[in-house]
């Protein structure tokens, strides 16, 4: 699924105001359900007569499917249906076809773990026995899993004969995307530099690592009507994909989102849902599917791995004269645009006269990548911020001063095209510089790392509806799964705008039939876009309520204003009437024209970019190469923090995911092209004992595109940690680190190599 990222147009939505509810920290509305075990996640639902389905997966990294014989599986007692790619409908767009082929391989398997067939049976045990009875004849082909190896002319070609657009001459058939960004004359810029540093970097593929494996429950009757329950970041996306893949109208498929146990971008596509629906259609029974953790690693999308060359020129006093980056990403067996996003974000923090970024996406025999929190940005900015740090080191300049000198600000022509509106990078850098952390002394074998981070933020299609209840309370329906407390922030914005207490509002995430379309919960868009639509839905309801008051008072509707949760006459000519509260208007609504509601539908724009700066102190053990995080502080522009606890939570969580990426996490492939660490024991995400407290400093530079100034905050936090930690480790170890993760053996090898 490709999300179009639009730069925030200079909006006029924002106006300064004093908040009553926004900025407070009430308990989240789904909190009690989640601390008592009552909340229902993807795997927690059952249905009468339910079958269980499991998937047969490729043992090969790359092979042609010669034949599939399902007769043995169908003959087993308790087996009710088997599906292969033959049971799905050919898609009109290549993007959809790729997603379908990733759900169920067609003709070829492209990676270890690629789905080949699925069985629905009376139990998981019977389904798994049946998988063993499916005979697949493979013609095994040579494979490639490394990004640089995938670009060689000698590399095995994944999609023979498929043509990709805009690929320059000289690239092999695995290059599925090529992009260029920048402005100015980089040759002239480099000629002006007193010093130029050129470095190459590699980053490993990492997984989003949500603790809840993918799970779904689908039903479909002979009348062609279907239901899906799924843990997903976007149930409208699930509806559209699943309906298209099995060949039904979207109106006949209702998708209900479960509580979602983490996503971070990894649940913005489909894996199981269309398969479960096809099995339900064939068997006439509800079908439940739950991935094992091994399947999550082998067959759901990790992020891309990368190989990047960066060249930056600087004057002696720290002014960057030119920057250039060549970014090569692999995101598995199907095309994606993550490398493009890397090229757009690489130099976004800087105000440069000359900048150029070039990006390639390379197809390899790995699982189809999925979005992972600011997709493409962490690895690009890691490479750039590492070189900026090295320049500061060589010129003996303060790394924050140099970033301040070159920082993007309002009016800067960004490295990827648009001109920035109000942005918070300078304020964020200044806050970091003034923080006690930056002046704290370091001990032996310790180093301090600094990095900037950036993310565009997305807005997109959004629908919100609210009902004003007769008892003076408000029911809000939105259509974006709540991953990190958004029902709280949406309720807060509704309460703020209507002028009523937070606990008078309840927000739910509706199913696909409840309200109009919504884009997936991605791009840090929910608090921004759903918040904007909620505020406008509230304004629609307020307009209606002002009209009701005018009717009762017998005055013109234009002569009624809304103040502190009540209609009031406006101006001297309106007459003298006591305020009529929301509750009073609602109670008599049947007499004044019927139910009162507000709704708003929008393809929102003006999301407002977000910058962050991270400071980290690390200690590297020169004997073992082990890195300990001693202190960590996050500074980030939130525009306006609606619920500061959950803004801090995003900043802290993003930082720790980035720490894992920097130090531990890695998809490890053997020579045989098989994933060697498909479990949490060997793919080690950070645990509580790895970490100190993560201090979070929120800055609020209002976004002109939102009525309350909100910017998305979910993604920027994962961008700076890779370089911040790498810069800290490089200082502590006394050698420049250029490959992630910085595992102890890699650090020891670098220390030994520098001796």
């Amino acid at each position: 699924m490709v999300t179009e990222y639009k730069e925030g147009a200079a909006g006029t939505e924002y106006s300064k105001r004093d908040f009553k509810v926004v900025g407070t920290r009430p308990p989240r509305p789904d909190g009690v359900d989640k601390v008592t075990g009552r909340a229902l996640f993807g795997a927690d639902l059952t249905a009468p007569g339910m079958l269980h389905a499991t998937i047969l997966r490729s043992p090969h990294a790359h092979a042609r499917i010669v034949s599939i014989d399902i007769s043995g599986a169908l003959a087993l007692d308790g087996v009710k249906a088997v599906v292969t790619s033959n049971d799905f409908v050919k898609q009109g767009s290549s993007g959809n076809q790729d997603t379908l082929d990733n759900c169920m391989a067609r003709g070829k398997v492209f990676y270890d773990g690629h789905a080949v067939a699925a069985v629905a049976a009376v139990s998981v045990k019977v389904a798994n026995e049946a998988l063993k009875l499916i005979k697949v004849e493979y013609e095994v082909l040579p494979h490639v899993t490394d990004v640089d190896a995938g670009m060689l002319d000698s590399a095995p070609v994944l999609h023979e004969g498929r043509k990709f657009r805009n690929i320059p001459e000289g690239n092999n058939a695995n290059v599925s995307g090529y992009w260029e960004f920048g402005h100015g004359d980089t040759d002239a810029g480099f000629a002006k530099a007193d010093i130029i540093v050129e470095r190459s970097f590699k980053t490993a593929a990492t997984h989003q690592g949500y603790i809840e494996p993918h799970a779904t429950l689908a039903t479909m009757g002979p009348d062609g009507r279907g239901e899906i329950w799924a843990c997903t970041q976007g149930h409208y996306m699930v509806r559209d994909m699943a309906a298209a893949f099995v060949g039904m109208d979207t109106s006949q498929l209702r998708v209900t989102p479960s509580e979602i146990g983490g996503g971070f971008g990894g649940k913005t596509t489909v894996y199981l849902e269309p398969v479960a629906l096809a099995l339900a259609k064939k068997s006439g029974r509800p079908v439940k599917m739950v991935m094992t953790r091994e399947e999550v690693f082998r067959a759901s999308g990790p992020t891309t791995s990368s190989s990047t060359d960066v060249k930056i020129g600087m004057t002696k006093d720290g002014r960057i004269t030119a920057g250039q980056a060549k970014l090569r990403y692999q995101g598995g067996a199907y095309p994606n645009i993550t490398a493009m996003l890397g090229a757009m974000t690489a130099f976004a923090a800087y105000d440069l006269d000359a900048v150029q970024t070039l990006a390639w996406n390379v197809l390899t025999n790995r699982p189809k990548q999925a979005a992972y929190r600011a997709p493409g940005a962490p690895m690009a900015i890691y490479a750039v911020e590492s070189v900026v740090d090295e320049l500061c080191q060589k010129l003996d300049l303060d790394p924050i001063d140099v970033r301040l000198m070159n920082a993007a600000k309002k009016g800067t022509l960004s490295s990827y095209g648009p001109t920035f509106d109000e942005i918070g990078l300078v304020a964020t850098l200044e806050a970091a510089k003034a923080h006690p952390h930056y002046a704290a002394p370091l001990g032996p074998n310790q180093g301090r790392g600094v990095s900037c981070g950036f993310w565009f933020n997305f807005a997109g299609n959004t629908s919100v509806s609210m009902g004003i209840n007769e008892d003076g309370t408000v029911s809000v329906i939105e259509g974006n799964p709540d991953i990190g407390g958004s029902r709280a922030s949406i309720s807060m914005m509704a309460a703020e705008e209507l002028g009523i207490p937070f606990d008078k509002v309840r927000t739910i995430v509706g199913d696909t039939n409840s309200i109009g379309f919504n884009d997936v919960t991605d791009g840090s868009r929910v608090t921004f876009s759903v918040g904007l639509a909620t505020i406008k839905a509230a304004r629609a309801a307020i307009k209606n309520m002002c009209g009701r008051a005018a009717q009762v008072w017998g005055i013109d509707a234009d002569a009624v204003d809304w103040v502190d949760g009540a209609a009031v006459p406006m101006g001297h000519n309106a007459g003298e009437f006591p305020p009529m509260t929301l509750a009073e208007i609602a109670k008599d609504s049947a007499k004044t024209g019927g139910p009162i509601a507000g709704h708003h539908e929008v393809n929102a724009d003006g999301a407002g970019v977000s910058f962050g700066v991270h400071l980290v102190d690390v200690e590297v053990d020169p004997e073992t190469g082990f890195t300990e995080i001693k202190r960590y502080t996050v500074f980030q522009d939130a525009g306006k923090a609606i619920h500061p606890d959950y803004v801090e939570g995003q900043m802290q969580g993003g930082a720790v995911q980035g720490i894992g990426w920097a130090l531990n996490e890695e998809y490890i492939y053997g020579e045989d092209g098989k994933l060697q660490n498909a479990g949490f024991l060997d793919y080690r995400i950070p645990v509580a004992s790895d970490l100190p407290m993560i201090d979070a400093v929120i800055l609020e530079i209002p976004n002109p595109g939102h009525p309350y100034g909100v910017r998305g905050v979910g993604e920027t936090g994962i961008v700076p940690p890779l370089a911040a930690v790498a810069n800290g480790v490089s200082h502590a170890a006394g050698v420049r680190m250029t490959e992630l993760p910085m595992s102890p053996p890699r650090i020891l090898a670098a220390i030994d190599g520098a001796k």
Partner: protein
Amino acid sequence: MSKIHVSTSINGDAVEYLCDPSETLLDVLRNRVGLTGAKEGCGSGDCGACSVELDGRLVCSCLVLAAEAEGKEVSTVEGLADGDKLHILQQKMLEHAALQCGICTPGILVAAKALLEKNPDPTETEVRYWLAGNLCRCTGYDKIIRAVMDAAAEMRGA
């Protein structure tokens, strides 16, 4: 293969079930007893989302066979609150906003309760090492650690 009959106690209630010899305690809790508070994040004892107490001992219920619960006492997240009164740990998790998605929360709560039963006054480091077997991907653990420390302080004071 014939099923095994098990008599056990879950959150103080006498419970009987039939299970396959290969079924885990987690499978039975979720699929036969109807208690879906314990979650399966990995099935290999690496994530702690399925944490329960078995005769007062913290275990990953995905690593315990259902048949092993015979004659024992099982405590799950569903047994933490006393009727409509939340346990202090549950209150503190809410007050400190110590959850985002909430999938790890049941396991964290059960593990933290087991810690405070053994050690009512843990240091931050002790809390971090005790909870090292409970993976959380959302929060970075900061607010979770604060919530547990605060709950411990309040329970000591109570």
